[in-house]
């Protein structure tokens, strides 16, 4: 038992050891290249997608005589690909987003405030929290089914109207805003609250005069990201009948309307060759708006983000 193990010191310069180290370093380099490759595949796919869309769609903005095709920018849906325009769908998207923002933002912010600042931890608030977290992960098409069953079949709101689309998307966007809002409120340090309480502010005043203004950039960032998601959403709107052929831009919240992503979907189903160009052009318009919204969100985050 007491026999000591005979071991020679490692011979780092021996041929076997050198070979072994070489092999290990080669494996290291291979692994590193593999990682770089994975990133490049993702980036390459994105680039390929954007280039394809640009290549196909840039012609959609150009009229036959080589100038800008104003009809495409100011017209609505039509049966002839040369006549179609994006304005009708764009206006529909705009009206839908107004409804979504008007509902989801106040409700989202108020519930974030309640959950983060006032709610006592009990079974009731646990239930609210669990349902908000689950709603954020429910597939969007389920919200479409909800909209169909409740807004159309029970409440008899008009089909394919921005009002119903906006309501449905608001239910979908609200959890995103709540989660972003709670994180933003959480990051405001307690000393701010204590100071305000110390000089005699009421609990409501503390939140509405001090905490919310400081949390606003974070809340806005989350809201813009949620709205960008809603702007690109198609499936729930198909469920509530927003796939009708609408040849005039909507004039109000209860007019039949189309929205940009649904218009893209409808045009992509057309067999006529000219629609490929128009579909890609519509995709470019949509992507420009989404990128702009995400850009604003990132800018806001970088400009106003504050480390306490």
């Amino acid at each position, binding site marked *: 038992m007491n026999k000591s193990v005979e071991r020679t010191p490692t011979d780092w310069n021996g041929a076997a050891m050198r070979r072994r180290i070489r092999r290990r370093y080669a494996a290291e380099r291979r692994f590193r290249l593999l990682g770089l*490759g994975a*990133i490049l595949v993702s980036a390459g796919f994105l680039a390929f*997608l954007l280039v394809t869309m640009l290549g196909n769609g840039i012609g959609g903005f150009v009229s036959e005589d080589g100038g800008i095709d104003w009809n495409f920018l100011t017209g609505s849906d039509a049966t002839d690909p040369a006549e179609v325009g994006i304005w009708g769908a764009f206006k529909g998207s705009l009206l839908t987003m107004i409804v979504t923002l008007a509902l989801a933002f106040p*409700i989202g912010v108020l519930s974030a405030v309640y959950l983060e600042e006032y709610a006592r931890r009990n079974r009731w608030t646990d239930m609210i929290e669990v349902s908000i977290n689950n709603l954020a992960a429910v*597939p969007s098409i389920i919200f479409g*089914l909800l909209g169909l069953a409740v807004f159309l079949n029970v409440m008899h709101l008009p089909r394919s109207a921005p009002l119903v689309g906006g309501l449905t998307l608001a239910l979908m966007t609200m959890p995103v805003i709540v989660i972003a809002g709670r994180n933003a409120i959480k990051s405001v340090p307690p000393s701010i609250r204590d100071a305000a309480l110390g000089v005699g502010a009421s609990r409501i005043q503390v939140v509405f005069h001090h905490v919310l203004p400081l949390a606003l950039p974070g809340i806005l960032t989350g809201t813009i990201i949620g709205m960008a998601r809603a702007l690109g959403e198609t499936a729930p709107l198909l469920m509530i009948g927003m796939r009708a052929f609408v040849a005039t831009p909507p004039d109000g919240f209860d007019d039949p309307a189309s929205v940009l992503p649904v218009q893209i979907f409808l045009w992509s189903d057309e067999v006529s060759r000219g629609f490929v160009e128009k579909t890609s052009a519509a995709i470019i318009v949509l992507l420009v708006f989404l990128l702009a919204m995400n850009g604003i969100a990132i800018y806001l985050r970088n400009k106003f983000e504050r480390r306490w």
Partner: protein
Amino acid sequence: MSLAAIAMLIFGLAAAAWAAGRARACAFAGPGKARAHSLPAQHGWYVALWTAIPALLFLSAWSSVSGNLIYADVLASPEAASLPGFDMQRHAVLREAYALATGQSETAFHPQARTLAPVYERAVDYYGRIGLLVALLIAFAGGAWAFSRVSPHFRARTRVERLVMGLLLLASLIAVLTTLGIVLSLLFESLRFFSMVNPIEFLFGINWSPQMAIRPDQAGSSGAFGAVPLFWGTVFIGAIIAMIVAIPLGLMSAIYLTQYASPRLRAWMKPLLEVLAGVPTVVYGYFAALTVAPAVRDLGLSLGIPASTESALAAGLVMGIMIIPFVSSMADDSIAAVPQAMRDGSLAMGATTSETIHKVLVPAALPGVVGGVLLAVSRAIGETMIVVMAAGLAANLTANPFDSVTTVTTQIVQLLTGDQEFDSPKTLAAFALGLVLFLVTLALNIVALRVVKKYREAYE
């Protein structure tokens, strides 16, 4: 006067009430006078809220009642006696008359609509006037009562704040109501479906052809609702093909970005992955159908396999790319959560970086990664537009990725678009599929969150 206009009027009155209440409070507040309990603006809010809220509550109740009252009034009028008895046509005439009366349209298809339009107009006008009058009365009464209570000792702040708290609670209940609404509406419609179709057949049948015949004596009049091919197609595209693409790429991206990349590369690549997550799914779907699917078909044909244009592979590949950012950001989080000491320990023992990643970081982060993958699967199987545009409609039970399969979400869209009768099993089947989808994604999310949470606790 429309309800919206009345509501605007009430808001105007509330603004005036705010100013009045504040002015009255200002008169007794200020230096050298009695110490008031609340600030003038808080008194103003108290009066304004009493002006607006009861009146708006009345208005919302009135808006749901007045439609029926107008309808009953029009039907009771002598002009309505000549209406057709048949329900659909009667409804159409009334709707046209309403459109004429409110100026939404100029022409009417049914001649009777013209005679009914003035009746409608009178009724709308009459009930509109009643609504306006009562709403204004309530607004003035509420405002006056609140105004009379404004005094130095009145605790306006406490009352206003109690109301604000109620409002906050109400807002947070909307989420619960939405969840409840989803569960109830899906459950209710599914139960109606299962009263027509045996649930066992739905869950375990392997034959899916939801076409209902127009005439009952037609051949194959009862559609078949065995959903197994749909479930298989969903799992095949969303959980197998997409994950084969997304897990290695997402995991390797996360590892590279956290362990190898220079801060500058990281600062560029992370937003790029976020852009990949922000591209709308309809764009991915169009790309899959336009570019990827023909390429996959050509690949299949060059390999000598009969390939469909709507192959499962094309939809799955693009869906996998879409999922990469989710997998990568979840893996990123869980690798970052592994204590630095474990990494340092491994490196100090002489392991290379890749050996540390293989033997220490990934095993330690595995629960978090698995949780992320489960979340990604739940997102993939609920994804709609890619499969609607790139996957097929044929309910095949096949494991050949070049063949066409259909998914739950594709079928929901297919069943609910086009002409709808709300009581046919065809339409109701969409809700049953929706219920299954909801329950499966819910279960996946709960399991995933639990795995992630447990793993976080292990290192805290």
